């Protein structure tokens, strides 16, 4: 080949990349959520299908419209809106009116994500923010739980049953096996710890998430509920607390959300422990039976501070930066 007229790119090193992209990561998250999606459809049937489709459509459409209105490039191709939609569905009760679910999607994308600058700029988890918003707006619809399968009789969630001083203490709590596989009332995607764990293994294997936050989170909840969850100290049924409610979903899929979690190892541990403490305190002493959602949202707010004070020291660096 003639060498005379070659135009060369004189770009900055490195000239190699790993090939990892944001859309590959988001696609991996969706794949990881598939077992739990299947479990949701199995236990809650048509309700699950409709709610999931509604929230995903609502989120993706909101993102598209927001992009267009703000005259920004359309970003639905990175799948992040779809992930938010799916996670939001997982956090909703199966029998929620579909228009409410759709409003949740709009809130998640428009208010918590796009108004703050889009992907990477939101300071709290969009799906959880939407859940909290719906909870505040329509508390009855958000806490009306159906039994699993096609049964539409209302019931109480496992955590509500064991809540001390709760009104529904007449029910017997479900056994631990049903709790683990997810055959209990609850939000769509949170009930099956088994399905969520299968997806979590995939996420870790694909190096999408690391284990610092989930392990610190779950470990703290286990220790706290073991010590304080029983009638006397050190008698709490911590296994029950681990598999009930949204702990697995929150620990592996929500608290690990990149944008709203710390970047350093120490920071991640602090985030996990903080989430765990708040969850246990809310569950054991708070007004709500479940505290995963609020604990993560509260810790989201602390992330910039955590990042600031856990900035790693450079290799061989005795002096602290920042």
């Amino acid at each position, binding site marked *: *080949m003639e*060498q005379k007229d*070659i135009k*060369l*790119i*004189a*770009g*900055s*090193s*490195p*000239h*190699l*990349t*790993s090939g*990892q*992209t*944001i859309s*590959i*990561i988001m696609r991996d998250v969706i794949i990881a959520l598939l077992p739990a999606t299947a479990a949701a459809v199995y236990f809650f049937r048509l309700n699950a299908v409709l709610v999931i489709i509604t929230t995903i459509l609502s989120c993706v459409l909101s993102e598209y419209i927001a992009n267009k209105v703000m005259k920004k490039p359309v970003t639905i191709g*990175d799948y992040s809106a779809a992930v938010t939609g799916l996670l939001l569905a997982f956090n909703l009760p199966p029998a929620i009116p579909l228009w409410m679910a759709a409003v949740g999607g709009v809130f998640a994308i428009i208010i918590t994500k796009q108004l703050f600058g*889009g*992907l*990477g*700029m939101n300071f709290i988890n969009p799906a959880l923010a939407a859940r909290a918003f719906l909870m505040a707006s329509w508390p009855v619809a958000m806490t009306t739980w159906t039994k699993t399968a096609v049964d539409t009789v209302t019931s109480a969630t496992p955590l509500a049953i064991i809540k001390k001083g709760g009104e529904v203490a007449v029910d017997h709590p479900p056994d631990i096996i049903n709790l683990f596989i997810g055959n209990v009332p609850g939000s769509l995607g949170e009930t099956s710890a088994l399905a969520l764990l299968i997806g979590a293994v995939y996420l870790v294997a694909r190096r999408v998430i*690391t284990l610092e936050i989930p392990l610190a989170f779950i470990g703290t909840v286990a220790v706290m509920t073991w010590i304080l969850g029983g009638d006397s100290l050190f008698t709490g049924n911590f296994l029950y607390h681990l598999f009930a409610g949204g702990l697995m979903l929150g620990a592996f899929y929500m608290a690990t959300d*990149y*944008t709203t*979690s*710390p*970047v*350093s190892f120490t920071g991640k541990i602090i985030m996990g422990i903080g989430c765990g403490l708040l969850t246990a305190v809310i569950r054991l002493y708070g007004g709500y039976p479940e505290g995963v959602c609020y604990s993560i949202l509260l810790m989201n707010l602390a992330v910039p501070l955590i*990042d600031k004070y856990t*900035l*790693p*020291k*450079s*290799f*061989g*660096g*005795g*002096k602290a*930066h*920042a």
Partner: protein
Amino acid sequence: MKIIKALKAFKGGVPVPHAKRTEDFEVVKMPVPKKLIFPMVQHLGAPCTPLVKKGDYVKVGQKIGDAESPVAAPVHSSVSGTVTDVRPILYAGGVDVMSVEIASDGLQVVHELVQPPVYNDKKGFLKAIRESGLVGLGGAGFPTAIKLSPPADKPVDILIINCAECEPFITSDYREMIDNPQGVIDGIRIILGVTGIKSAFIGIESNKPKAIEKFSAILADDSLIKVVRLPSRYPQGGEKQLIYAVTGRKVPAGKLPSEIGVLVQNVNTVSFIAEYIKTGMPLIKKKVTVDGSAVREPKNLEVLIGTPLRDVFEFCGGFSEEPGKIIMGGPMMGVAQFSLDNTVVKHTNALLAFNKKDAAITDESVCIKCGKCVEACPMNLSPLFINGCVEKNVIDDTVKYGVNDCMECGCCSFVCPASRYLVQSIRYAKEELKKRAHKAKK
């Protein structure tokens, strides 16, 4: 001899594809080119002043540029011929460098002053090394004579030979280990003898089993020189990472290895010293790996310093398709060249030509704060925050995020799923800080 395992594994790093397909290619000597160009800066330090003028006749090994500053390395002609021009030329570093252009006569007449150096003490040895024009051949190009003379109050007890060669594609160090292990060992003995350093370690990545075998066979009963098998992880050959792996010692941030009693030399640097002491021929040629997706015949070459890149690629059968990027050095830290008229210099260890597809630059997308750069950084920095400061143009803030500890290994940009130009922004910040410090002095 028992091969020692690395004491420590450095934190971070990335698993780069090794792509060392040239490792079994024997080194081919490239013919003498017709026209050569010698830039007066081929090292870190003060620029040299040309010692010849247009029309002068020069011989092989003749000094054609030198500087008064001790932190410099003189430049020698690699051919005999006539100086056709002395003029500034723009190099990939972005600045004009005074350069000597020589038309070779093909006779390769050796200069009279090329004699094996005679020295009685360390001072004389260092003077000879300086005269040889030797710089660190691993890539950074720091004058070796300076590196060999650490401050008197910092006693050095360990010499490490860097045979990690962790960059993809490059096999020029590997060929030296396979083809000339005795030369490397001779060089080590010379350095040990002159400096009084007690022991030496040859650090080789585990993906070069043949090289490890060769050295351990020769050094079977040696008590001073030992072979260390290093994990094959980029950037194992980074000076601080290598020292940590071999000795468990950490070089304090912003300090040199002599601070903790260690001296690191590249394998080719060491074997050059042995040869120079024997022959007195200054640094005039380099082993260069030529590879990449746009190169027709990948090769390991022995190239005269000053040879235009154009000639090197032509000797390798030219390009198989139009190259989009030509890199001097490895794909992780090498410098992209803008012109084939630029030349092979002292620290050139590889020339890579990538096709348009491999050279394509991905557009940046937003940072999602995934923290993968923090995980990958072998210097334990947080590249995303430095990048954020640069984006907001608050360059002074990058200092507290340790921007000056960055060695620009490229791990952060390599892993970034958003294709952020992290290394580029760090480089920009360092340059800005330097400019500001310079201004403040005035």
